[in-house]
């Protein structure tokens, strides 16, 4: 499995250097600012875009769960990181990789950006399938760009996706322990004319 993981990242990263514009595009997609901000904007859009009060309330609760899942994903990734410090691909196979991104210093498994993306996408998907699928696709592209850049193994990406979706499920479950606080918070936001 580990060998397949290494082979895949070397093969995918080996495609770089052939089409300069595609490499630049992947560098852009892998950026810390493009896709993470797109996720944040999607959460903002979800909060505001319900067409009826009932739909809006549903979207807003999903947004709150999504934002919480995003934060909890970070904690989950950190917990996994302290129990398993997997070196990045460029650390063990630097001579075979063409690094397209700066070398991150944190452990490789699971992919934190993917975990966050999948947590947010799962929240959107739970209330709006079409929007959610788009967000999953963007999260997948984000993971692919980091894989192509040589900073993650494929299993890191899969691990990140699983962590993100699992944390979303856990956060949704957690909500029942915090009601009616969450619903009242949405009402407070409505009282402030922002929900």
């Amino acid at each position, binding site marked *: 499995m580990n060998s397949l993981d290494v082979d895949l990242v070397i093969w995918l990263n080996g495609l770089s250097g052939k089409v300069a514009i595609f490499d630049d595009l992947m560098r852009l997609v*892998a950026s810390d600012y493009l896709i993470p901000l797109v996720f944040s904007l999607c959460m903002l859009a979800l909060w505001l875009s319900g067409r009826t*009060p009932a739909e809006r309330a549903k979207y807003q609760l999903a947004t709150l769960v999504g934002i919480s899942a995003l934060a909890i994903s970070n904690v989950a990734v950190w917990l996994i990181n302290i129990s398993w410090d997997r070196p990045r691909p460029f650390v063990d196979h630097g001579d075979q990789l063409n690094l397209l991104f700066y070398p991150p210093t944190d452990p490789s498994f699971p992919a934190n950006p993917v975990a966050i993306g999948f947590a947010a996408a799962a929240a959107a998907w739970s209330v709006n399938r079409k929007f959610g699928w788009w967000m999953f696709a963007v999260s997948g592209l984000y993971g692919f760009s980091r894989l192509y850049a040589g900073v993650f193994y494929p299993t890191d990406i899969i691990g990140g996706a699983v962590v993100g979706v699992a944390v979303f499920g856990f956060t949704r479950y957690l909500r029942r322990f915090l009601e009616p606080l969450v619903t009242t918070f949405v009402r407070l936001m409505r*009282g402030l004319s922002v929900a």
Partner: protein
Amino acid sequence: MNTDPLVVRDVFASHYFLLAFLASLGTIQVAVTISGARGLWLTPHRTVTRWLGIALIITGFLIFFAQPLWIEGPWAAGSVEADSASREWGQADWSDLGAARNVNDIHGGLDGTRQAIWFPLSVLLAFAISALVGALNLRIFKAPVGMAARPGNDEGEIGGLTGLAHRSYFSNLKVSWRIFRSDVAEVWRSGLASADRWSVFKVISERSRK
């Protein structure tokens, strides 16, 4: 990196704030044209407002990622190399542009926590501007209110974003707050009654009753 990370961070923070502000202003505009909250529209017309929102989002990203071409930062010589430690201060050229913004947070890039601080601040500013311009729009143009936007036509809801369909943010705030104050006790009580039996608040309230 040949530059102080704190200086780099200041550059990134100001550029990121502009990006987040423009993109969130655009997102708010697109979203409120869907929900019909006219009190937050930047123009009196739905379609124009929506396209303006899309243009603002694109402009925000274009400015942010193209800025290294004309603003000096940690993206000059060496930025084509992946390691941001090898970079010089200066302007990037076209061939470096794709990677120019890829600066490790230990070298001054913005980490997730800092982005999580700057993003909500930019959203607040974008919302405030939408509310101000939306209020001016309603006052100047006295935009006609559609059937769906009329109070009483929307499941009895007149506060919150629904109220913004026919009021400015500022006049809607008074109404929404009054509704919240009159409803909050009942919302809490009914929420508590329908909450899961393991709800922290339900457990506490049942314990205190005993």
